[in-house]
């Protein structure tokens, strides 16, 4: 019984991890339509930043910048040639992700590295360790920041305008190039932050990104493209589902169950939890 009850906070904390890794995608994928397979490697960059600095708190802002700048370079060098072809970006960024993984292997070596957790994060409340609570807090903070950015600033509005009608945005006076850069910067930067947080619970190595990327996209898909509240609910839902499915069966089956549920769910809501319908035909 305790075990069963324990799964609830565990599910929420899994959801928080999912949310944290998917948050950046609501920008790059949701807002810009770029399926960035290198998102995982930006997470990895965040984690290695924490490793190099050896200090988690200091690493948060630095990783934000580091991953963000990597995103910026990627956007300028390659992705900007691909707007309007979202499926192609998937393949392009996958190539980038391969190169980044190999780069990490050469820079930091193939074995995992260790990031010391700050002492104030040892211990916990009930089944939830402080580091999980920290991640949950970070996820909440991230959601609030993203929400405010998207709905409370002109920048957020401009971002959406550019995605929805690039040409019209340009002829409405928006510097689409700058908006793209900024959006991609933020989306990637959020991945960096997630990477710092993940050092608390997972391995820090060249393959780090590959472990999270599929799940992150599932969250965005189930939530509805670019829908922050959708991503939040989907992350929590999938976290809980994962937690209980694994509790009753095993980790392998839980993954399969999660996928099956997402497919079944898309039968009911083909565009995810929240969808903005348009009258235009595609």
């Amino acid at each position, binding site marked *: 019984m305790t075990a069963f009850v324990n799964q609830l906070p565990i599910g929420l904390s899994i959801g928080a991890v999912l949310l944290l890794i998917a948050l950046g995608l609501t920008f790059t994928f949701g807002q810009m339509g770029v399926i960035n397979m290198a998102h995982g490697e930006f997470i990895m960059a965040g984690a290695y930043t924490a490793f190099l600095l050896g200090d988690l708190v200091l690493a948060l802002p630095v990783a934000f910048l580091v991953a963000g700048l990597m995103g910026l370079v990627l956007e300028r060098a390659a992705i900007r040639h691909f707007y309007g072809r979202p499926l192609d970006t998937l393949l392009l960024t996958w190539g980038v992700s391969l190169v980044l993984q190999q780069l990490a292997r050469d820079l930091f070596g193939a074995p995992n590295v260790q990031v010391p957790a700050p002492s104030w994060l040892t211990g916990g409340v009930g089944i939830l360790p402080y580091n999980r609570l920290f991640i949950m807090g970070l996820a909440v903070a991230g959601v609030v920041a993203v929400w405010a950015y998207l709905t409370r600033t*002109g920048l957020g*509005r*401009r971002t*959406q*305008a550019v995605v*929805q*009608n690039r*040409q*019209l*945005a*340009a*002829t*409405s*006076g*928006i*510097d*689409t*190039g700058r908006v793209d850069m900024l959006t991609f910067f933020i989306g990637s930067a959020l991945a960096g932050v997630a990477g710092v947080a993940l050092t608390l619970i997972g391995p820090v190595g060249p393959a780090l990104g590959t472990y999270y990327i599929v799940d992150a996209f599932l969250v965005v898909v189930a939530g509805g493209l670019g829908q922050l509240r959708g991503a939040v609910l989907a992350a929590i839902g999938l976290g809980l589902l994962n937690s209980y499915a694994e509790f009753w069966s095993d980790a392998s089956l839980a993954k399969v169950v999660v996928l099956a549920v997402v497919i079944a769910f898309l039968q009911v809501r083909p565009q995810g939890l929240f969808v*903005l*319908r*348009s*009258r*235009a035909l595609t």
Partner: protein
Amino acid sequence: MLSVSGLESGYGRARVLFGVSLEVGPGQLVCVMGRNGVGKTTLLNTVMGVLPATAGTVMFDGRDVTRLKPHERVRLGMGYVPQGHQCFPQLSVLGNLLVAVEAAKQPKEVIDEALEIFPALRPLLKRSAGHLSGGQQQQLAMARALVTKPRLLILDEPTEGIQPSIILEIEAAIERLHASGPAVLLVEQYLDIALRLADTFVILDGGHVVRTGAAEELHREDVRRLLAV
């Protein structure tokens, strides 16, 4: 104000414009006319920088803008309403207007001014622009260009799909607007409106200017003949 000379452009290997030249003087309203597919939209898109010019120049306010990006031209004071009631479908009507206002660094009050001209938009402010009817979207597009307070307004068939009474309003608005200063470059199929508004005509055919002249010089029947198939 706007001076286009020897402009050539097209799509890939297909050339559409062959050396188009035209002038829009300060406060002037120039109407571009021509049958379907002669290159009117292509001309406006090239003037706005959406399409690159392969030859020729576009001067605005004595400045060569041929190589500038569209948003830079907007910031210099060019406003554009493209053909086909375009909008940002998932932004609200207000959001559509705010985007333009912010990009042009105008005070929010200009929105109210635009809504006076298009009162039908007022109850729709919260609705997603993508859900509007075609005519509503076209009105929104006009309003969006107006809020940037352009010194040169470029309109591509602004009355298409709009109900008769509002066409009259738009006509009046254009008249008022252009009386208050800005120059206008207009593509219009409604000859009546064109004749009432235009100071100068430019008639295109096959990517060439076939006739240009002041409204007084051109008679209704001349224009008609030039536009016939």
